[in-house]
């Protein structure tokens, strides 16, 4: 089956920041994104667990977004601007998609 190379951007971010990151992606004309809720983790600031957090702060979400390579730099730049002052991990990886029109 014919596949097409794209980039997958993964952004781990604190839940209270989610709306801001999504607005940034919207502003960059990405065709879509998906959010997963993380369950637990540990970083330099110590461990956290979804069931042990009050309110929205503290828990992380993972936003991912499949984009064309041509758009990648613009997206990364503007996402980085949002997450630079907060907890946030951004990774990029290679994927192949089967429907080109979608991205």
């Amino acid at each position, binding site marked *: 089956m014919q596949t097409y190379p794209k980039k997958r951007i993964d952004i781990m971010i*604190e839940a*209270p920041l989610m709306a*801001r990151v999504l607005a940034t992606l919207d502003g960059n004309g990405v065709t879509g994104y998906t959010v997963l809720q993380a369950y637990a983790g540990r970083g330099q600031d*110590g461990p956290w667990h979804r069931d042990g957090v*009050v*309110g929205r*702060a503290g828990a992380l979400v993972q936003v991912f977004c499949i984009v064309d390579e041509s758009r990648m730099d613009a997206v990364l730049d503007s996402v980085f601007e*949002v997450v630079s002052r*907060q907890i946030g991990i951004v990774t990029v990886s290679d994927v192949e998609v089967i429907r080109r029109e979608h991205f």
Partner: protein
Amino acid sequence: MDSVLDLAAANLLSPMILFFALGFFASMARSDLSIPEAIAKGLSLYLMMAIGFKGGASVAQFGIDATLLKALAAGVVLSAAMPLIAYRILIATTSLPKVDAAAVAAHYGSISIVTFLAMSEILKSAGIAAEGYMVAVAAAMETPAIMVALWLAHSTGKAPEGKASPRSGGIDPEMVREALLNGSIVVLIGSFAIGCITGEKGLQSIAPFIIDPFKGVLCLFLLDMGLIAGRGLRDGARNLTPGVIAFGLYMPLIGATLGLGSAWLAGLSLGGSALMITLAASASYIAVPAALRLALPEARPAIYLPLSLGVTFPFNLTFGIPLYLALAGLIH
């Protein structure tokens, strides 16, 4: 003095506090006990709905008077003034960086609704009535402290602006909207309004849901709060210096004193005064942290969360509540 000790003992041996203690020690002992996030959120929604509705229905029954406005004004002033005091104390007595001091200060200006609930239950058991609109005062006290603390953090000029975009710093209107429309406040104030509209009749129709099981649900919720507070203290204690921990214990007393004055000025009843003192003495651990992660990300949650959740909240729940009720007795 006798009765204060009696009250304190009765409070410490109430199911509410014992369930809190159970959770606290379970976390400390690293038990895997946990309450799913969805359940905790559901319980919290229930508690907001119930307390708001009951407050509203009581307003519908007893009417409102000028005291309401005075109490609201007093609450807003307290919430805005306490961070200024807290900030000065922290700068003077601890080595916290200014941005962390401002963040901590915001928590103590704002309020903890669960502490408020626990005081309401104690009043109810003791047969002491309180103004129903105190829930509106509670809601009004959540946000002003955040604004003042942000102003502190930015005006004292030491917030590292760095390469931050304009919208990630300062007090932008979007943030104010978010703080005012946060879920808990909407349910609390909305249920209060519905209680006002539907009154005693509305209350009767849903009493088997929002009144009868209330105390039991609060016990279950406090079990969860105990787990969270214990975990917060366990993981976070090493980040807190003795000076900061001491602040978490005496700042509530300063707040309580200011609350006492405000209650007296506003002319609140015994029960209302106890609630006002409790609000002033309590520290936020939900609304303020969420807002600060957005608006003041340089401030470290590893300082303000364990302090508010692991030190001040348990202190208020166990020793604070009987003390604040006794304080309220001084002006009645």
